[in-house]
């Protein structure tokens, strides 16, 4: 396979429930079928996708990205309106390539994107007034002063110019979107429909009830439709299934259907199930979506009001009552499918657009913590066993209270002053995004940085010069001896936190959860410093362990969380923990996001962590 046949596809994937994730998957599957090798790059904090995909999936910290192997590959981005597309937009800005917008306006991501910048809300005013003049200024003012925005406005104000301006090429999924992209000042290539790999449509026998899949109806509509069909007497001739757009059972169900009704997806620029249905000549019932405009009128029944159950009931009744209707619609979709299913053209177009991307240094775009491993302890360093008692100065990655108490039961831990070394505070502050001194104070560490064996030989990047322990010690009232954790400090004894197991809970206090202005805090009980990004819905946290070992996060309630340490990503549930190896320096840095579950649709991390929290378990090596 040549380099041209390989594409780095940047997007999100199911189980993330978004139009962008669905479209990314379908593009990846279709391109693979056409002979293009797809490597799909998803965010470090994205939930793990299925393991049996026909293409490979990587994250920013993976070798293929960090080694530079993918730097010259053609790049294709799939951007949607959900939070899952924010990292994709960030990558697009840093490493431009060809882009496909999965939704019809992208407006829902405009505000979050602008909020990620320090010049918000000035950037919002500039964008809206630049694009829409006084009307834009009114919209900006309505939001900034009164927090007012509306779904109708979102449709009227596409954000293509704002979010996709940096792209090397633009692909439109339908003629309507092509016009929008042209209006935004781009020169889009109109994509043909993606070829559909799966073509195993099951034909039903004449006597069997007509199988109809309905995608996108809410529960109330579904119930009313079933009732109405029963009263009209046609229900016995119909086998109707209401499907979730994002379920992995939807595609097989569509293929097994005699007809498919797609009611939602007005925001989506293209519905993959529409492609699947037309490729397999399955008659369609649609609701006037933009992406259906390319379909000839004789290929589908158009509902004039998808919010009411009555038009759907009438359409379903017509399918079973009017002779030849089903067959006529099937002919219409078949003709469309034959016209659009031009695999070679589609593949060439995708490859050509992606090839406009220029080589970039992906490792630079996705920096992985470069914290060096501390030097091994000097031979002269003494170790201190669990019999250490009283008050010591604790230096380095001083572990959380529960670990510390297990290690040194007789230590007066509350009275022990804690100090950091430059390399630990630099790595932690850079991860959290705070000035080092602020983070130190926030985590209860004393201000002077203690010079470690590692920092003695390194050029200093912290504002304050580290000091020798021997210089600090005379200023301390009671701590005349020091214990080192995850570092080597002249004059300190090694704490050797190996072999112990401790478990404890991390919960955000209720008063902090209620105060929405507080987005970061240090929890002294659990030793967790956290900061919450409300735009991305992710929590960054630091856990110090004191040394090498394994740290496990476990959900204490039914809401699952996805956790990454930027070298691996795991889902944690009540029964299954997310386990991470902590290096010798004992500094654990994580990103956590909540995943939707059957129990809750509210994914407010702060609320969830205040209600249920997480369980942490440490085992030292």
């Amino acid at each position: 396979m040549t380099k041209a046949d390989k594409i780095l596809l940047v997007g999100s994937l199911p189980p993330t429930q978004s139009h962008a994730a669905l479209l990314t998957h379908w593009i990846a599957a279709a391109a693979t079928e056409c002979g293009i090798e797809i490597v799909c790059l998803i965010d470090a904090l994205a939930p793990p996708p299925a393991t049996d995909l026909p293409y490979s999936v990587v994250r920013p910290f993976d070798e293929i990205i960090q080694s530079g192997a993918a730097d010259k590959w053609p790049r294709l981005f799939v951007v949607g309106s959900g939070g899952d597309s924010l990292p994709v937009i960030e990558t697009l800005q840093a490493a431009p390539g060809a882009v496909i917008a999965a939704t019809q306006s992208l407006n829902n991501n405009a505000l979050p994107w602008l909020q990620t910048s320090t010049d918000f809300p000035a950037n919002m005013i500039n964008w809206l007034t630049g694009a829409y003049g006084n009307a834009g200024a009114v919209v900006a003012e309505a939001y900034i002063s009164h927090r007012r925005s509306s779904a109708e406005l979102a449709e009227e104000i596409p954000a293509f110019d704002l979010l996709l301006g940096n792209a090397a090429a633009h692909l439109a999924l339908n003629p309507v979107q092509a016009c929008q992209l042209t209006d935004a000042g781009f020169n889009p290539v109109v994509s043909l429909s993606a070829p559909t790999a799966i073509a195993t449509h099951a034909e039903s026998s004449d006597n069997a009830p007509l199988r109809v899949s309905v995608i996108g109806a809410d529960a109330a509509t579904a119930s009313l439709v079933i009732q109405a069909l029963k009263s009209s007497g046609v229900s016995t001739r119909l086998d109707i299934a209401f499907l979730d757009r994002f379920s992995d059972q939807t595609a097989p169900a569509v293929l097994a259907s005699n007809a498919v009704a797609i009611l939602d997806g007005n925001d989506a620029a293209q519905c993959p199930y529409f492609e699947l249905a037309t490729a397999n000549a399955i008659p369609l019932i649609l609701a006037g979506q933009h992406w259906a405009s390319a379909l000839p009128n004789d290929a589908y029944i158009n509902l004039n009001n998808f919010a009411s159950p009555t038009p759907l009931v009438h359409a379903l009744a017509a399918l079973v009552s009017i002779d030849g209707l089903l067959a006529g619609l099937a002919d219409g979709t078949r003709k469309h499918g034959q016209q659009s299913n031009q695999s070679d053209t589609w593949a060439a177009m995708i490859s050509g657009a992606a090839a406009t991307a220029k080589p970039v240094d992906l490792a630079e775009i996705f920096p992985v913590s470069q914290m060096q491993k501390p030097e091994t302890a000097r031979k002269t360093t003494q170790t201190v066993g669990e019999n250490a008692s009283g008050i010591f100065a604790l230096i380095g990655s001083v572990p959380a209270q529960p670990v510390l108490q297990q290690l040194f039961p007789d230590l007066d831990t509350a009275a022990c002053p804690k100090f950091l070394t430059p390399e630990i505070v630099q790595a932690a502050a850079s991860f959290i995004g705070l000035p080092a001194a602020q983070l130190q104070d926030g985590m209860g560490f004393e201000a002077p940085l203690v010079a470690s064996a590692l920092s003695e030989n390194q050029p200093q990047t912290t504002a304050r010069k580290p000091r020798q322990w021997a210089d600090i010690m005379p200023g301390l009232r009671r701590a005349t001896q020091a214990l080192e954790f995850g570092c080597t400090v002249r004059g300190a004894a090694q704490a050797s936190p190996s072999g112990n197991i401790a478990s404890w809970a991390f919960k955000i206090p209720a008063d902090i959860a209620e105060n929405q202005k507080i987005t970061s805090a240090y929890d002294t009980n659990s030793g967790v410093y956290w900061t919450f990004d409300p735009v991305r819905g992710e929590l960054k946290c630091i856990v110090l362990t004191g040394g090498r070992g394994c740290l496990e996060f476990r959900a204490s309630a039914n809401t699952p969380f996805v956790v990454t340490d930027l070298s691996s990503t795991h889902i944690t549930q009540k029964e299954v923990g997310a386990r991470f190896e902590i290096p010798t320096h004992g500094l654990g840095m994580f990103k956590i996001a909540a995943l939707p579950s059957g129990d809750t649709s509210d994914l407010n991390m702060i609320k969830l962590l205040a209600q249920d929290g997480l369980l942490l378990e440490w085992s030292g090596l």
Partner: protein
Amino acid sequence: MHILVTSPIPSHPQNHGNRARVTALCKALQALGAEIHYIYGGLEQLSDQQELEMREAWDHVHILPPYRMEDRNKSHRKHHLLDDWYVDAVTGLTQRIVDTWRIDYCIANYVWFSKWLETVPADIPKYIDTHDLFGGRHKRLRADGLPESWFSTTKQEEAKGFTRADTVIAIQSEEANLMRSMTKSPVVTLGHFITPDFLPPTDVQSSLQNGNKITVGYMASDNPINQQSLVEMDSAIGRRSDVLEHFEFRLAGSICSAACARNTQFQKLGFVPDARSFYTATDVIINPNIGGTGLKIKSIEAAAYGKALVATADAMAGIESRYPAHALADADAIVDFLASMNPAEAIGDGEKASKALVENYVADQSAAMQTLFPKLFGHEDQQPASNGS
């Protein structure tokens, strides 16, 4: 050497007299080799930049959450009680620091933020840097026709606060004398810290020959007392508008954005980032301050640049000077002085008077520092005493 300092106000930026005072004292102590543990009590919301500057300036910085105005007590209808604005978290934090570090001196800025001194072990010298007199302040403001603002209490309450300190620090000698009448604790006068930076003598003659007017400057923050002083100065100029033929009045500092500066006869320069450039470009500095307490830092600052200063007696309270233009009655007297003076002679005399004043002031300052912080001067056993009793 470790010194624990608490302050309800931030030390940065130094765009207010009280911030300049806190910063100057801590910087002077650092210069003598002390490590400063600075606790900010959260009276004002800090910007990220302020926090960063404070963390860079001091060796150990602890910042308490903002203490909202609506949460502050006023226990008495007309005035506050001593600890109404105290933040209890300060006590826990100072106890922890004193327990952890060998603290050599403790300094509480403002008497109403000094409750934590009660828990400091007896072997550590405890000071209150008063900044101002708060006993009966509300009455004094009323008498001067000014609205009550900020913190006011009774003399009894204030005296109660003074007993928490081993030594009370007054910012000027007149206040020191008043404090001595209120407390048995020793009182030391420690004025505002200045480093003399005498500018070259003003060449008035050439300026006048070139047809230029003499520039008269007033630099002030926007506090109510300064605003009132500006109003009175404007009125006085209005009554003797002939001075405008020979003098150009310039206004600098945050007072420029106050409502009273909208229709002023002063040319507004706004906030001046570099005070030195303002003083360099100005021939005469005025301070028309009426009423108020504390030290008028702008007066001593002008003198430190060696500028001719024309000021009211109130504006020079606690600053020793025999120069007549340093003890004028009010704004009218300032305008009269300007109108009647021989510019070249008066400005020359004024500059000499400022320099002499500053040289004495710096010597007193140095003596006060040795009295208060003997350990920093190598005198381990010497106990601080009053410098004026």
